[in-house]
């Protein structure tokens, strides 16, 4: 089986409902700048991984396990695989 290199983007964001003081501080700053329509901001992490895998679904599956074990903390964060594409 040949391996293909995939570029995987992951979003990790604070769990909904948890106090997110960073997001609130950014929202307040945006209001100060005059962006009064901003209702909320959540600050998270964007991770980009390059993974050698047999298929796109395998790369996706591996990333999910990485998120569960390390990249996100399920107690406080949600993750979403934003994209998987050949690198």
């Amino acid at each position, binding site marked *: 089986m040949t391996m293909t290199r995939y570029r995987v983007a992951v979003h990790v964001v604070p769990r909904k409902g948890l*106090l997110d003081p960073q997001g609130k501080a950014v929202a307040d700053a945006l209001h100060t700048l005059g962006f009064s329509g901003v209702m909320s901001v959540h600050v998270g992490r964007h991770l980009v991984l390059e993974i050698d895998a047999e298929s796109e679904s395998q790369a996706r599956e591996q990333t999910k396990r990485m998120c569960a074990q*390390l990249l996100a903390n399920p107690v406080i964060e949600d993750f979403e695989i934003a994209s998987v594409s050949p690198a």
Partner: protein
Amino acid sequence: MKFGIVTFPGSNCDYDAYRAIVEALGEDAVYLWHKDHDLQSADVVILPGGFSYGDYLRAGAIARFSPIMREVVAHAERGAPVLGICNGFQIACEAGLLPGALLRNASLKFVCAPVSLRVENTNTLFTSGYDDGQIVTLPIAHGDGRFSADDETLDRLEGDGLVAFRYAPDTLQAAESYNPNGSMRDIAGIVSARGNVLGMMPHPERAVDPLLGPADGLPLFESILHRVAA
């Protein structure tokens, strides 16, 4: 009794812990390097404060995968004592030794100050040297100390008497500002369901010498000594 103090890259309270054990408590202590696989027959393991791995990703998230942590988790699973202080508390949560997580302080500020705590349960391995409801003063120094967990977990912690310390008002602090980081239900320290793992954000090892202020941290170490030796 022998205490093993883990040094991760970025730990900065390992020497304070060592000094508290050897000089204030008068017991043996050894440093355990994070890459080691051997607890050197330590009876008690201390995960000290600091900024292991630069707090990259999340505080404690990478330290929990250090080789020594496999032994520390096995030590805890045998029911042996583990004390996680500050970054050590964050590591213990990430490692699944304790429930919940420590998030960025609600103020977004790093807070370095003495705080008042109420001892909530004196029937633990770590707190028997205090009086019920005693108010003690210990220093904190952290930016990520906001204890968070779901309501069910918080109810269980409270119902089972697993909350060891809570931030509490005293005469020095205004009633509305005693919680320094926004921790849920003012929780400053918790023990595991079996009672052998304590995680706390305040630093008892920095409060053991009367020359430097209240020595309110010393009874915690004495408690371990009396209970484990007994």
